[in-house]
């Protein structure tokens, strides 16, 4: 068979959709057809619900789906990170049991990595995994767990060996969230939302076959999950947006998206809402203030240069060039953009920025920007960690001398946490 091209992939998916797509399917029923045909996750292996196509063709397939209004597989939330990790490190049993139900949207997932005592230093996790008989018994606490209260399954990083250095003693598990040993409590944030959870384990059980890594390799597997988080699971993970279309399958999809996206509803405000700056400046007349004009212009310089830097990185990738430094900067730059946007919104809003909710501009949206932006430079790797990554991986600068990576983890000073 000849190499697939953009045109050949487009023709093939178009023909398949013409023959198969009908909006009166049930959501799961239709997605089972996607699993069967491989068009739901075309870059996955043929054996596991994909078509083994290069990832660059995903956008072509997406375009064709959008053209006829066909619904895709479940793409939002942590489930796609679970899928990517399982595809790379899981056993056939894991693939058999989980992948299809991820694509159909029947199962939802959460990521149990961060702990109260280990944020940036994620490999310093102290949640315990102890072998009792042939089962694993889990005790400890995780935090910042998006959607844990809804999740069927969790990706768990826990310490199984305390006598080796920290990166060597971790194991990676798939944990059944619906069991008595798992308790989930919401975590209220400074912007009043509670998008994340605290998860407590008291003798929670993991069956032996749900150990994903060997003990000691948990960190490697976690790195895979994090890498997929950074690159959006190769486009499979999206910020889902519901369509306004009518029909059973669209209603089901809308309900699914509403549930999955609920924790993320303040994320646009977290990024600073650059889109609101010029309209708000005009509306308030602040557009004529020369000082504010300078600040707005600074923001537009940042946000445009950030957008063009991302486009440069993508263009180089499409050309098959090795990744240049421009591909590693987006996270840090987004913090600069968000902070400058919050500053500008404050200047534009004046005294009204003292208020929130119904008393404040745009029914609280501006207030929500001002108290959500601080999350940007923390979530998903702090600015400080981003700078370390850039300086060590891109600029090849030496690491700070380390005090915790060579001795047994049990001897490493660490935070006192409630257990």
């Amino acid at each position, binding site marked *: 068979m000849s190499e697939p091209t953009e045109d050949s992939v487009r023709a093939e998916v178009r023909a398949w959709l013409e023959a198969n797509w009908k909006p009166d399917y049930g959501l799961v029923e239709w997605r089972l057809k996607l699993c069967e045909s491989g068009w739901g996750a075309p870059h996955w292996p043929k054996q596991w619900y994909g078509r083994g196509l290069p990832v660059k063709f995903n956008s072509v397939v997406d375009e064709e789906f959008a053209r006829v209004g066909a619904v895709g597989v479940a793409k939002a939330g942590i489930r796609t990170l679970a899928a990517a990790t399982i595809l790379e490190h899981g056993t056939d049993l894991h693939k058999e049991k989980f992948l299809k139900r991820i694509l159909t949207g029947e199962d939802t997932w959460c990521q149990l990595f961060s702990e109260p005592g280990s944020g940036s230093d994620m490999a310093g996790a102290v949640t315990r995994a102890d072998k009792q008989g042939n089962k694993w018994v889990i005790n400890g606490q995780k935090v910042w767990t998006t959607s844990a209260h809804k999740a069927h399954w969790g990706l768990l990083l826990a310490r199984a060996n305390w006598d080796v250095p920290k990166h060597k003693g971790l194991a990676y598990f798939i944990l059944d969230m619906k069991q008595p040993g798992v308790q989930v409590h919401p975590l209220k944030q400074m912007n009043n939302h509670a998008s994340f959870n605290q998860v407590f384990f008291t003798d929670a059980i993991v069956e032996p076959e749900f150990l994903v890594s060997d003990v000691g390799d948990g960190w490697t597997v976690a790195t895979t999950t994090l890498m997929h988080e950074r690159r959006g699971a190769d486009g499979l993970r999206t910020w889902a947006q519901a369509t306004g279309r009518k029909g059973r399958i669209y209603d089901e999809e809308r309900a699914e998206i509403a549930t999955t996206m609920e924790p993320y509803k303040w994320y646009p405000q977290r990024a600073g809402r650059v889109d609101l700056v*010029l309209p708000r*400046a*005009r509306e308030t007349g602040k*557009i004529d203030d*020369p000082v504010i*004009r*300078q600040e*707005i*212009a*600074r923001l*537009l*310089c*940042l946000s*445009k*240069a*950030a957008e*063009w*830097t991302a*486009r*440069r990185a*993508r*263009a*180089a990738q*499409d*050309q098959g*060039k090795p990744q240049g*430094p*421009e591909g590693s*900067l987006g996270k*840090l*730059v987004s913090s*600069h953009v968000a902070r400058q946007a919050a500053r500008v919104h404050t200047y534009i809003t004046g005294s009204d920025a003292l208020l929130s909710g119904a008393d404040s501009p745009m029914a609280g949206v501006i207030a929500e920007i001002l108290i959500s932006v601080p999350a940007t430079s923390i979530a998903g790797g702090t600015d*400080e960690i*981003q*700078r*370390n990554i*850039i*300086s*060590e991986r*891109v*600029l090849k*600068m*030496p*690491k*700070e*001398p380390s005090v915790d990576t060579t001795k047994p983890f049990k001897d490493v000073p660490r935070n006192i946490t409630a257990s």
Partner: protein
Amino acid sequence: MRFSFSAEQDEFRTSLRRALEARSPTKEVRRLMATENGFDREGWQKLNQEMGLTAVHIPEAYGGSGFGFGELGIVLEEMGRNLLCAPYFSTAVLATTAILNASTEEQKKALLPGIASGEVTATLAFSEDSGLNDAASVAMTATPSGGTYKLDGIKSFVLDGHTADLIVVLARKPGSTGEDGLSFFTVDGKAAGLERRPLKTMDETRKLARLTFKGVAARLLGAEGQAAPAFARTMQQIVICLANEMVGGAERLREDALAYVKMRMQFGRSIASFQTTKNKAADMLVDVEMAKSAAYYAAAALDEGDDDLAAIASLAKATAAEAYLQTAIHAVQMHGGIGFTWDNDTHLWFKRAKSSEILFGDANYHRELMMRAWAA
């Protein structure tokens, strides 16, 4: 919009970088910047002809190679990186864009082949003693005189103004104001009544001159009194070109400072292992890459005729201005005491960063222009 360079463009950059590194080491930069002319005519002509540099973006019909601003941007970025001492920006950017934007077909055929071949050096004179960069600030008058014109007044901050063979001059009809009555003229560098005084510059690699015109014979370029749109377009092209030159210098400073901290040992370890140094280096990379993105985008926008050019040009200049100077400040700091010495090369680029920050309008000026274009 084009967001990456082709394999041919990358190859062109590589060979140009190699040629400039061989011909213009900092020792040579230091030798030439100490001379009044600021360049070596023979050496420059040889390099220019070998690499076809002034011909790059001149259309083939006028003796050039017919490439776009993308390729011109590459040349400028490499020259900024190398601090090449040559009248390139004045000739290939200032004079050439003005001629291309303002002249008749016949005039282009007469003027551009000499520039493309490298025989003629040229510049554009628009600023006067006020140092302002807008059309309205032009006071120099052009009086008709038997088919040609006589120019009277002062031009200042003229790049390579004391050495250029050909000077393109922006002047106005006596009594006109604002953007009305402006025309471009050409003047011979050796014309009678023209007095050229080299100015002492803070950035010695960038030579400026003050020109006094007393009844100097000049030839009109294009239509009389209609130069304002061509000047506006020329300014957009000039600042985009300068932004591309600037990011080349900024990247060089960043790389040199990084190499230095990796080598420098204090407290028994490389100073590159301290987080305070690493954070600075990461921030420098962000600044430079963002400025590169804006400069490259702006050059592509010129080639592709983007509607937002006025805003994009100013955005690129403002971004490059802040990034280059900030990089220079960090670079001196990262070198410590040695970075403040004359013998260390960092100050050469620091001064280029400072002169580029100001030349053709600083960041505040361009941010305001950007707002006028985007927000009215």
